[in-house]
């Protein structure tokens, strides 16, 4: 039982995540990609009858939304029921860099300084939660996929488009980490 509480090493987690691609292809003929669900959510409401959301989202997306509900349950089991009590074993240089930026809480998956209901009342927390989420949703659909659809599925199929998107992910990520985050914190 103890193993359920332990963090999973990267060399175990990576192959399992990679197997999601053939498992979904073989067991359902489906292409792995999480952010399509955000589009299905828009299609389910579609205020204003936007053309991009005019499709049969139930037919296209029920399987994926079910997958997503499964991920929430998996998160509950892994992060609530069998939660690892120890803080994450981060690189010392990351911790000192983040401390220099003013991060004080290293106890969980996310810093309470930025990601909590209390932080939502601060300018930094509001920016992280609202703007961060918005750009993830906007950018994923603009690029036609997120980390799962491009970095995992697309690269698995050796698609040049996905490699281009992943380069984009890193352009944005590095700009945020080194130039913009120091201004927010």
């Amino acid at each position, binding site marked *: 039982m103890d193993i359920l509480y332990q963090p999973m090493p990267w060399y175990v987690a*990576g192959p399992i*995540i990679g197997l999601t691609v053939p498992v979904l292809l073989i067991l*359902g003929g489906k292409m792995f990609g999480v952010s399509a669900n955000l589009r299905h959510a828009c299609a389910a409401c579609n205020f204003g009858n*936007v053309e991009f959301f005019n499709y049969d989202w139930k037919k296209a997306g029920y399987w994926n939304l079910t997958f997503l509900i*499964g991920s929430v349950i998996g998160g509950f089991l892994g992060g609530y029921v069998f939660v690892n009590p120890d803080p994450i074993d981060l690189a010392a240089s990351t911790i000192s860099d983040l401390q220099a930026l003013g991060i004080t809480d290293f106890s969980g998956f996310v810093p309470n300084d930025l990601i909590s209901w209390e932080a939502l009342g601060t300018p930094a927390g509001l920016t992280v939660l609202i703007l961060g989420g918005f750009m993830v949703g*906007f950018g994923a659909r603009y690029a036609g996929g*997120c980390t799962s659809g491009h970095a995992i599925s697309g690269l698995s199929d050796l698609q040049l488009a996905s490699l281009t998107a992943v380069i984009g992910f890193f352009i944005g990520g590095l700009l945020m980490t080194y130039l913009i985050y120091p201004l927010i914190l």
Partner: protein
Amino acid sequence: MKFFEYLKYLLIGLAFGFVLIKSEVVSWFRIQEMFRFDSIHMYGIIGLAVVVGIISVQIIKRKNIKDNKGNPITIPPKDASQWKRYIIGGSIFGLGWALLGACPGPMFALLGSGITVMVVPILSAIAGTYAYGLLRDSLPH
């Protein structure tokens, strides 16, 4: 049976969410560590996932493996000539990924782990998706 059809996706999603949490991919700190090039952790996970994915997809294609309904497995190619959407859209995604410290899968796994405030970025991401749908025709692709 419809029920088992969906149960299958629920269980695959459950395994995915569980592994995202246990490997700490969901952690804002791990994403910071990745963009600071301080650890192999995230690169190892994504790299090995891609290696396993490439080998699997090649086997599926070369052996003409069929899906559960007996249909040939086809992966629709993405149009790489639309490089603007991948670079610009990808960069906007990357800005959000580093800012929030979570991409779509982890956002939902974190919600399940009890970090209820993740509802806010999830709704915000749906709003962002909706905004893209509205603006799509006026954006470079």
